[in-house]
């Protein structure tokens, strides 16, 4: 089945430090989406990556999709306390038969100390 590993599981940073989370798949991906879930909240869509080697930026957030479409990363520059939450990648396997199944990683829990 679809395996997607997300690392690290936890990350504690001081405000102003950078943060990166990685998502790795054992199979080639059709595309990848990233979500953020605040404590007590629900996942909120951040971005979707489709093309091999794609890089997208949203203010302090930079998203990358690997050349082989098997891995992705989310990098936050100069973290702020508002960045606190759990970041999930979500994938659908390329060529898979499960048309409706979006598999989420276990998430990286980010804590930002002021």
């Amino acid at each position: 089945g679809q395996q997607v590993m997300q690392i690290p599981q936890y990350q504690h940073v001081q405000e102003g430090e950078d943060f990166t989370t990685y998502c790795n798949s054992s199979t080639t991906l059709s595309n990848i989406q990233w979500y953020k879930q605040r404590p007590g909240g629900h996942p909120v869509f951040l971005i979707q990556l489709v093309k091999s080697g794609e890089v997208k930026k949203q203010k302090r957030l930079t998203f990358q999709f690997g050349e082989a479409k098997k891995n992705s990363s989310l990098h936050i520059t100069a973290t702020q306390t508002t960045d606190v939450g759990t970041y999930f990648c979500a994938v659908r396997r390329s060529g898979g038969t499960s048309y409706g199944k979006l598999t989420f990683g276990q998430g990286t829990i980010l804590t930002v100390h002021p």
Partner: protein
Amino acid sequence: GAGVSQSPRYKVAKRGQDVALRCDPISGHVSLFWYQQALGQGPEFLTYFQNEAQLDKSGLPSDRFFAERPEGSVSTLKIQRTQQEDSAVYLCASSLERGAGNSPLHFGNGTRLTVT
């Protein structure tokens, strides 16, 4: 109008009871998904609807779990004879396009189910 609406927000059930969880997706959204999220874990896929058709139910953990979306809008997830391991947050999401990963998933606030 509003986003995805789920009810109830919290549900406490005694072991063995049946429960029904409701999801009202964003109007016009073709796809509807149910996920189960245990504490500290990522959402786990349960089932997928395209309009009224349940195209994927591979994530339903047992035959005690049943979902429907009879008119292609509101969906209900039913759990029969609840057990303690069913305790989790049940998230509903909808998206505009067909299939998973083609457009953003819009999640509801979830129903937190506690089985005692």
